[in-house]
């Protein structure tokens, strides 16, 4: 009886042009629902696929809101570390995978209660930043005090963030279960009606009528959820199974990351734009710094395989006199040129150029990975929402990637909370589109800005170099502009120049 109705509904669906999307790899039968052999499939309100920094931050955010903390959540991730409570030791050598957390993200993490755990491990606040390029024509120094802030950001190792978020999630009351496996297939059927009357519709019947999504995992488990949140990274399986297309391109660049040690502590973030691309030196605490060096794939394999000493020499050279002279601010005239524009003196305007501290020792292995820009065309469809890198991947040159992801997590949990307040079904597209409308413009703007930077700094052309130098100079000396830039990079939602 059910099958008859369901297939009729299905055939009517074609005539009514309601989208029919079987997602699973197997042929989707409308009435898939005989109980599987093996463990019982369970039903959850939200299934978070991907237990990385953004996925766990989303779970913590749900647990910290009064309207969502009663939800039943499943986290699907095959990382074995998620099964343990604390998986880092305090005297571990720093991992080269780090993230720069902006003040806006810091306050989000404080709100959800996870930041206290981060502060117990290695982390580094920095309040100064120096940016210059290889032509030696100019430089810009930023100080948090210019924008009346205490810090410009905090650099934290990814494993520290992950462990903090995980221990916080495990501490919280929210019902949750971690599935240590990978997603193999996902099905969501279109809405159809049931002729059954009564409140005991089984999970399989609900799934058949489009009220639940069905997830099948590689270890044979299945689960049902009202909403599937894809937080599974740049190569998102959820996004692929949902058929959401992306726009983007691969940069012909790889990034090399590693950790180096200095003789003294470093409290400043350094970034030099070289002919191929930026080299960044970020403090991570305890006299260690993290290096992110973007270059062509051939160069990256060369630098990865050279000896440690040679690599250190190359790094120090690149940060010092390599490729070009030290900048002095007098090349483009003195700061009097801009004195009429200054809205109050910023203290860092008078700071001189400094040479970054020398790297004394290599403290980790060198890792290389390719860079790309990718943006999902939609962040949400029926019963699916994408957050973090699954929705957008950016160039690491301004350290914004995971911060955009935290912004997504915060926004989606607010939208879900508001939806529950007015009794909405959390898998409804209209609700999820509100999240998309909130985050898409901000993310796209940031991506455009970063991409613009990446392109502007990859060309070595005389007049363009002078233009870039003028831009640096302007940013350094025009205080309101500097303040706007710092605010924007810190995660407050305003574009520079439009303050």
């Amino acid at each position: 009886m059910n099958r008859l109705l369901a297939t009729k509904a299905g055939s009517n669906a074609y005539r009514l042009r309601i989208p029919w999307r079987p997602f699973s790899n197997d042929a989707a039968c409308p009435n898939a629902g005989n109980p599987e052999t093996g463990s019982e499939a369970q039903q959850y309100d939200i299934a978070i696929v991907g237990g990385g920094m953004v996925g766990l931050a989303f779970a913590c955010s749900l647990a910290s809101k009064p309207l969502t903390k009663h939800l039943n959540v499943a986290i699907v991730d095959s990382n074995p570390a998620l099964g343990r409570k604390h998986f880092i030791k305090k005297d571990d050598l720093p991992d080269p995978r780090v993230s720069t957390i902006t003040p806006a993200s810091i306050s989000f993490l404080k709100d959800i209660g996870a930041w206290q755990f981060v502060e117990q491990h290695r982390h580094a606040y920095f309040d100064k930043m120096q940016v210059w390029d290889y032509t030696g024509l100019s430089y810009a120094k930023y100080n948090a005090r210019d924008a009346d802030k205490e810090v410009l950001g905090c650099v934290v190792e990814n494993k520290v963030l992950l462990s903090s978020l995980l221990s916080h999630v495990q501490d919280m009351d929210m019902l949750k279960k971690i599935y240590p496996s990978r997603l193999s297939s996902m099905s969501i059927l279109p809405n159809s009606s049931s002729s059954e009357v009564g409140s005991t519709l089984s999970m399989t019947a609900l799934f058949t009528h489009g009220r639940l999504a069905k997830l099948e995992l590689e270890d044979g488990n299945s689960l049902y959820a009202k909403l599937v949140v894809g937080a599974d990274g740049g190569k998102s399986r959820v996004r692929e199974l949902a058929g959401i297309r992306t726009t983007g391109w691969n940069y012909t660049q790889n990034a090399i990351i590693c950790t180096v040690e200095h003789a003294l502590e470093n409290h400043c973030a350094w970034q030099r734009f070289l002919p191929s691309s930026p080299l960044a030196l970020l403090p991570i605490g305890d006299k260690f710094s993290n290096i992110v060096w973007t270059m062509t794939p051939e160069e990256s394999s060369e630098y990865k395989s050279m000896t440690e000493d040679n690599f250190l020499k190359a790094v120090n050279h690149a940060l010092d006199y390599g490729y070009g002279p030290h900048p002095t601010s007098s090349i483009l005239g003195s700061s009097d040129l801009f004195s009429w524009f200054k809205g109050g003196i910023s203290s860092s305007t008078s700071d001189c150029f400094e040479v970054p501290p020398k790297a004394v020792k290599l403290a980790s292995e060198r890792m290389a990975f390719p860079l790309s820009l990718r943006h999902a065309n939609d962040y949400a469809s029926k019963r699916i929402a994408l957050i973090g890198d699954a929705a957008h991947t950016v160039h690491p040159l301004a350290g914004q990637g995971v911060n955009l992801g935290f912004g997504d997590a915060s926004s989606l949990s607010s939208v879900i909370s508001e939806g529950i307040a007015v009794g909405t079904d959390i898998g409804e597209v209209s609700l999820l589109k509100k999240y998309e409308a909130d985050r898409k413009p901000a993310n796209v703007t940031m991506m455009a800005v970063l991409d613009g930077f990446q392109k502007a700094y990859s060309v070595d052309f005389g007049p363009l170099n002078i233009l870039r130098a003028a831009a640096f100079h302007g940013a350094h000396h025009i205080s309101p502009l500097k303040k706007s830039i710092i605010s924007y990079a810190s995660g407050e939602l305003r574009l520079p120049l439009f303050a």
Partner: protein
Amino acid sequence: MASSKLLSQPRWHRLLRRNLPNARLFSGLPTQHPGSVPEPQNHGEPKSKNKFKTASSTPSSLKEAELAKFAAISDTWWDSEGPFKPLHNMNPTRLAFIRSTLCRHFRKDPLSARPFEGLRIIDVGCGGGILSEPLARMGAIVTGIDAVEKNIRIARLHANMDPTTSNIEYCCTTAEKLVDEQRKFDAVIALEVIEHVADSAEFCKSLSALTAHEGATVVSTLNRSMRSYAAAIVAAEYLLHWLPKGTHQWSSFLTPEELTMILKRASINVKEMAGFVFNPITGRWSLSDDISVNYIAFGTKETNNEE
């Protein structure tokens, strides 16, 4: 009221004919009023509450094939991108007002996910159940009534799909009939109904009779003002075609003062009032103090009069 004016064929009908050529249109059911056919509206739910019409409330014996066709078209009512899109857009805003006023009145925790637990609420003129379902998800024991049989069937089919809403009691009946049955509810909600009834004062008396001791009544409608003429009649019906022409009679709109007065005569004191405004840029409705077009009123039953 609009008894002499034949409504143009609603878009709902045209959609149906195009896609299901063999469907038996249920307008074949005996009805006295042209206005009883469900219409897609943006400012209200599709129904007509002429109390002189006797609706057939006995369920007809539908064949399974008919049920299947019904199952297929119920999505149109509930298709949030379809003809009822403006209503779906307005819904969260109405619910926000209802949630805040009822939580305050019944002293329920506004931070709870199911604040209406234990409250009996009736949705008068429920249509396809767009308001009833969220109320049920918020924990209430919901009864939905509508004078149009079709709507009740659609509402029942859709509510059965979700275990949290499948307990909603849907009846094809009128408020007056329920008064005769001496039913009582903690909260009586009649949104976008009163502008379609023949005698609004009598209708309010029925709403009041359904309200239990120290209960709440929520009514929403359109204001009779120049702005509402421009927005709801000219813009919505003639320019934007959100509603079929003739859906609303401007002369039967009630001003907030009139509504307050007839509710007072029915022993309901209006305690709060708010307006809905539509932002054409974001496409969103929001609550505001501007009651010149759409407005919603919350009132409580006076306790000094015995009903």
